[in-house]
């Protein structure tokens, strides 16, 4: 309960600071929208030249992209730990975090949240509704619950992977460029995995399971029965990966000795 109260305190504080610079906020939301538009334009232009992409139609691909945007928006709102090494380890900010009686990772999530990214979820849902309409998809009463479950699973997959990478900083001091690399690999999950070769498919499913953020869960709503098993694995993979990342984090924090101040 305490954690929930703290969460809303931070959100309120965050709103106050952001509302101070409304123009910045607008521009940021706008450039996010532009980025999503560019990806959609890519899909639209490509399907001007082909009817199927590895057996998937235009609207299916758009639907997958729309779904992907929702867990991704949640991830980028709450897991801005890409600069964890510079910000918390090198500058010794983690010392401050550790003196407080709340879990350290939770504090960092709160401190670094960027709620304006949540707007991407709205875009994503709009895109899904548009594509779903074209495909004539119906909504059954279980769909909203599963959607929530899958979206959370996808967010946890992303969060888990990035927290684990941030944990590297506890063991190795050197600055790594793995973070930006991961963002680029994450893009692979936006498209059907059957277009990749078997090695990449295996990696995207079991090692860096980005396929569980876009294609696998979205397949359920598209009624692709051959992928159902993977769709329902989404929350499991999410919990497993996030769980491992928390354990890694905890043992990393134990090793942390501070950068001196």
């Amino acid at each position, binding site marked *: 309960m305490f954690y929930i109260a703290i969460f809303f305190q931070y959100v309120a504080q965050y709103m106050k600071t952001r509302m101070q610079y409304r*123009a*910045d906020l607008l*521009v*940021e939301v*706008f*450039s996010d929208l*532009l*980025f999503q538009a*560019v990806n959609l*334009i*890519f899909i639209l*232009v*490509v399907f*001007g*030249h*082909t009817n*199927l*992409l*590895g057996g998937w139609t235009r609207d299916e691909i758009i639907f997958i992209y729309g779904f992907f945007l929702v867990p991704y928006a949640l991830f980028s709102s709450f897991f801005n730990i890409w600069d964890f090494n510079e910000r918390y380890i090198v500058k010794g900010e983690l010392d401050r975090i550790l003196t407080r009686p709340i879990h350290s990772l939770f504090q960092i999530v709160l401190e670094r949240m960027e709620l304006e990214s949540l707007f991407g979820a709205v875009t994503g849902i709009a895109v899904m509704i548009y594509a779903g309409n074209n495909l004539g998809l119906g909504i059954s009463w279980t769909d909203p619950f599963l959607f929530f479950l899958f979206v959370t699973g996808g967010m946890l997959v992303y969060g888990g992977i990035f927290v684990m990478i941030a944990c590297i900083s506890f063991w190795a001091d050197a600055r790594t*460029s*793995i973070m*930006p*690399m991961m963002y*680029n*690999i994450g*893009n*692979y999950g936006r*498209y*059907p995995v059957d*277009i*990749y*070769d078997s090695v*990449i498919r295996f990696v995207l499913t079991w090692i860096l399971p980005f396929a569980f953020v876009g294609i696998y869960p979205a397949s359920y709503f598209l009624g692709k029965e051959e992928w159902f098993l993977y769709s329902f694995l989404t929350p499991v993979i999410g919990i497993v990966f996030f769980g491992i990342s928390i354990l890694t984090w905890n043992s990393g924090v134990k090793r942390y000795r501070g950068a001196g101040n």
Partner: protein
Amino acid sequence: MDKYIEMIRIRFLMMLAYRTNYYTGILIYSINIGAYYFLWSAIYGEKDAIEGMSVIQMSTYVAVAWMARAFYFNNIDREMAAEIKEGKVAVELIRPYNYLGMKTMQGLGEGIFRLFFFSVPGMFIVSFIFPLQFSADWTTWIFFAISIVLSFFINTQINLLTGITTFFLFNNTGLIRAKRVVIDLFSGLLIPISFFPVWAQDVLKFLPFQGISYVPSMIFTKSFSDNEAIQAIIMQGIWVLLLIIPIQVLWVIAKKQLIIQGG
């Protein structure tokens, strides 16, 4: 002129000191090339050619477009924005050189460094992973070389324009980000311009962006005939000259209304 060449040299040496950062850069670009390679292979499916380009030409296009990006891409706009915000620009303005010219030369130093330590080895590595096709024709290589230099200038000029807007907008991080996204799409980095619907191609014809990525990549993959290549290069040259005008106008206005706070 000497001081400008010296600036290229200094930037080059500066980049050389931090060269390890670039090995991961090659990896990141290869990952991107891979993503688009698989996408395009799936898009082509059974088709031999789309818009006159074969699958191999397409993979080569993707690879060369990304590796060329390493050469022409720079963060001059962000550097300018930072210098203007911090007031450092005041010192820059009293120095005995042209500020914009100096920024361009710094970008060129960076570009030359990345050409040798990023683009060339990157292209070499990528050619082992994906099936690419290199032209044996020396005219293609000469056209490509001219075209890529011009694309550096067009991209840098657009960066200078974006950088100058900081004088008027004060905070333009959003604009800089938006510009980058727009350039990736409209320059032909993600999709060749010839794949766009005709009406969009007609609009893009009147914009400088396709001179950044589309033209050199089309030349490299031999998707342009010699005639088309020469025409495209002339268009690039015209854009380089045309873009000087808005830069100069904005620069004069910006200097007039510049107020340095502290410093």
